[in-house]
Each structure stands twice: as C-alpha cells, then as structure tokens.
C-alpha cells in the first residue's frame, strides 16, 4: 500500500519569519519528534497520571507525534510504514546504480543513470510528502532549503499565487513582447527597495528606488548556478525618433545562486561583478510611466567582465541582443514602474542626469479630413 499524495498546505500563511536554515537529516528510524520537555511524559496519555504527577502532567506539551487519539496514531503508523518502504526502495536503487557504474561501465551522464536519479528524487519527495511534521514546519516557516520536499512545497506555493501575478503584470503591461519575446519563470525573484518588499508591477516613488535593491533569487532545484541580473527601461522617450528607446540601468554578473544561497544582491550575498552600475530610475514630467524590467539569467559559464563591459552601451541596449550575444537563459523576472513625482528633479540633479530641465507636452493628432 503506498500513500503517494503530494498535498501541501494551501492558503495558510507563515506564522512567523521564514528561517532558511539546515535541518538535521531525518533519521531512518522514524518520524522526527520534538523533544518533549517533561520526563513524566513517558508514562503515557496526558491527564492519566497519579496525584503527584498531576501537576507535572498539566504542564506537558501536546505535539503532533503524541496526539492522544487512537485513529491519529494509527494513521501516523501507516504514514511511517510507507515512508520506510520508500526509503528502502531508495537505498536499493542507489545500490543498483553503484553496481551498474562499477560493473557495466555506465557514467553519471548515461540515460539510464539519469532516469534512476530522477526516480530517487521522486521517491525522496513521496517519502516526506505525508509527514505532518514537514507540513507543520512549512506552515510555520521553518524551512530547510537543503531538503527537496521543502523546495517542492515552496515551488508549489509560488506557482499558486505569486507567479501568476508576475505573469499577469508582465503580459498586461506588454513587457513580454517589448523586452523579451517570451519568458517562463522557474525561479522566484524577490526585490526589496529600502528594506520593503515590492510586488511586481507597482508604481514606486523615485526616492524609494534611488539606490539598488536587495534581490533574492530562489531556485527550486538543488543545484548551484551562476546568474546575471539585467535591468532595462524600454520607455525612454526619443523625440527625434518619434518613439521610445531602451536604456540599460543595471547589470550584475557571475552571481552564485543555490537553494542555500538565495540572496543575489544584498547584505548576505556572495561577491559578484557589477558590469554596469545602478542608475536611479527617472521619468520626466508629462511623459508616460516607465516600466523597469529586471530579468535574471542563468549563465552557462563564468563571464569575462571586461569583455562584457566593453560590449554594453547604456543608451543602445536591448535585452534580446544581450541574451543572444552572451548565450543566457532567462529564469526569472521582475518589473516595477516609476512616474514623475516631487522628488525626481532633485534626484536627477544629484546624479547629474541629463534632461532634468525638460518636460513633455502632448502633440495633438491632425484629424484627416
């Protein structure tokens, strides 16, 4: 009998701040139990103690694993049994793999070995999927990013709400045909300006976006990779061209990202190369709002910074060209908007940005007779 449902918590918000730390590996013996503070708990069901132990028993904590309901305990037994089955299968598969590699000379890149590894990952998920302790941890924000089950649950949660919101913003504001022809985000990109988390598509104050943000990229695969972040503004007005230009605002390359290292740019980020320093977003008075699009790319290999620096021109930059030249693959995106407001003029003067003394006035269409 196998209980193979991957049901995660839906619509239960984390009760506290998410702690992305390493959880000790789940022992093969059984489900992980929290240490119960009282020694008298070994006696048995709560409330059934003697007169002397009555006081102590009243202070005992109920945990998931020690719920005093017979049906619940029987269910836990079933789950535990299923888990043991899955773990046995995993060990058997691992041994088979080792034998194949040793005796038949197959390599780790072989199709058969790769499919066996994928099967093992699946069984690892199935083993922990029904564990109530895992579900509780996830709901409370105690997430071990080294465990595939938590990554799976995070991915599911992201795809349920925040990813559809991001895609809706990108498509309705036409970022997707304008900046890139198509995108399939597979990593969660979180952006914090001045410490505040920002939802994609919001109109932000120019003071808030004056400095570069803290960017977190959460990949849902247990792999290490190098990433590039590029921010482009596709709405720079060009009156000579009677249209709009693209401007590059920020490019950072060679950022190491993994499930344990999710901060790309920020306090706990690993050192990376800033190819193009951050330029504060500025929108002139009268012109329509600018959409600032951040795309997170996965690099195939380490990029040479000097070569890249030479090839980028801030005022003549297209994301499509950048992607194809450097053979990058987009894994995540983010977008925010900036309009002219009372702080734009001082910010533009402070950073010596040309055009602080210009505003845009509408030209009326001549109605053909």
């Amino acid at each position: 009998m196998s209980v193979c449902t991957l049901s995660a918590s839906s619509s239960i918000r984390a009760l506290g701040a998410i702690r992305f730390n390493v959880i000790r590996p789940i022992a093969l013996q059984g489900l992980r139990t929290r240490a119960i503070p009282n020694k008298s708990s070994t006696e048995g069901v709560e409330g059934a103690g003697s007169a002397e132990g009555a006081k102590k028993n009243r202070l005992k904590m109920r945990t998931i694993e020690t719920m005093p309901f017979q049906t619940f305990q029987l269910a836990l037994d079933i789950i535990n049994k299923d888990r043991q089955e899955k773990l046995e299968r995993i060990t058997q598969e691992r041994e088979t793999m080792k034998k194949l590699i040793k005796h038949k000379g197959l390599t780790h890149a072989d199709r058969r070995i790769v499919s066996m590894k994928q099967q093992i990952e699946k069984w690892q998920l199935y083993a922990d999927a029904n564990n109530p302790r895992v579900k509780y941890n996830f709901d409370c924000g105690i997430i071990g990013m080294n465990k595939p089950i938590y990554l799976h649950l995070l991915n599911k949660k992201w795809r349920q709400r925040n990813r559809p919101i991001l895609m809706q913003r990108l498509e309705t504001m036409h970022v997707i045909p304008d900046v890139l022809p198509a995108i399939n985000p597979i990593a969660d990109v979180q952006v914090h300006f001045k410490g505040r988390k920002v939802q994609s598509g919001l109109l932000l104050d120019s003071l808030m976006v004056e400095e570069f943000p803290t960017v977190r990229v959460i990949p849902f695969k247990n792999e290490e990779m190098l990433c590039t972040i590029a921010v482009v503004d596709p709405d720079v007005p060009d009156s000579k061209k009677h249209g709009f230009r693209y401007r590059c605002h920020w490019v950072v390359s060679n950022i190491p990202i993994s499930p344990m290292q999710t901060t790309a740019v920020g306090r706990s980020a690993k050192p990376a190369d800033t190819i193009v320093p951050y330029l504060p977003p500025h929108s002139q008075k009268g012109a329509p709002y600018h959409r600032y699009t951040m795309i997170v790319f996965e690099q195939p290999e380490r990029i040479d910074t000097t070569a890249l620096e030479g090839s980028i021109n801030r005022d003549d930059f297209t994301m499509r060209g950048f992607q194809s030249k450097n053979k990058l693959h987009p894994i995540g995106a983010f977008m925010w908007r900036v309009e002219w407001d009372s702080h734009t003029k001082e910010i533009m003067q402070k950073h010596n940005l040309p055009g602080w003394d210009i505003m845009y006035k509408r030209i009326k269409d001549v109605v053909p007779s």
Partner: protein
Amino acid sequence: MLLPRISTTGILPSLRNIGASGCGSNSGILQQVRHATHKASKAANGSSNTAGKRLGAKKTAGEKVVPGMIIYRQRGTLWFPGENAGIGRDHTIFALRTGYVRYYRDSGPKKRKSIGVALTPDQPLPRPPNAARTRRLWFEPVPLVEKEDVSVPQGTPLTQEDWAKVVPGSYIPRPDNWRIGKVMGPVVRKRSVFEGFERSAKRREARMKKLALKGGKTKKAKAKAKARAKKARGA
C-alpha cells in the same frame, strides 16, 4: 369469374380525387383560408424587408486614421481587430492609434482576416509573432515648468481676492479646497496620542518590575496555585 368492379360512386366525394392527384399536389383540392381568424392589419405573414444598415468598410486600406475612427461595420466578426485596432459591442472595428489602415490575414493557426493600423505609411502587417511593439511618442520636449508652491500659514482667514478666484472650466468663483482648509487655526491637543502610548508603556514596565521583585507571580496566580494545592491534598 369476373373480379368485382370498384365503382367510384361508392367512394366518398372528398376522397374521390386523392388517388388521381396524389398527396402533395394542389391540382384537384381547393386551398382553404380561414379569413375570420387572419389579422390583415398586422404584417404577420407579410414581407420582412427592412432598410439597409450601411454596413461594410468605412476606411479603405492605406487611409490615415486617428484613434476612435470607425473602419468597418459588420454583423458578427467577418473581420477581426488586428494590431492597434479595437472591437466594439456590435463588432465594429475602430482605430486605437493614429496610423494607416491595413487589411490582412493573421499569421496564426486560424488565419483570420484582420484589420489593423500600421503606425508608418510603409509598415506592412502582420508583424512577426512576439515581436516588440512599435510605439510612437506623441509628445514633444519643452522646458520644465513646475507649479508655484503657493501656500498660506494655517489660520489665515479668506479675503475678497480668494472669493474672486475662478477655476477654468467652472462658472462659480470660489477659493480652492486646500485654501478653505487653511482657514482654521492649527490644532492644539492638550494630550497627544503618542504621549498616551508612552505613558501606558511606562506603566507596563513598572508593573513587570514589581512582579519580578515579588517572585514572578501576580495575586491571581498565587490564589489559583493555592486552590490547586488544596485540591491535590484533598484528593
């Protein structure tokens, strides 16, 4: 033996001609119209011809249009709205941007007939799928003009000048709402809300200190513990 002759005289008069004329033809049987129950005044069975609705193309290919101009009137979607064109509730195709009308077939799988508006006279439609949009900037750069920072200290009463100000577009001379708001004097609170928070925080701190000194239990908790001990002794 001779077969008996079927004499027509024995058959009912109404059925006499049915064999001859058949079931469908009108030749022998008279048409009967019941005039008593037929309303001649209303054209229930009359002709249903109505006036022409002047459907069809209003702008031909290559003509310049501005936003809002109707390009094609139709019943249902003979033509679909293409790039920079919109569709109304009666499937009227109209322009969303200034440009030149184009009639074309879509590059998608359905190969629909579409009407679009190209932004330049030479631009052909349809454009490649997922290509960046072409947009025109209908703005011109002028020197920056910022609004004067007109302000008045809180507590200034209204004057004759204020009452004479007319907002463009309105016939009623009245002062702006923000100017009306400046008439009242500044609000002077005897006790600010934040002072209240600070006071209650201080009181809470003092209470906790007291508890710590006394050994960590309030009066209530002490009484409860006493009652429990009594019960345990009794049991």
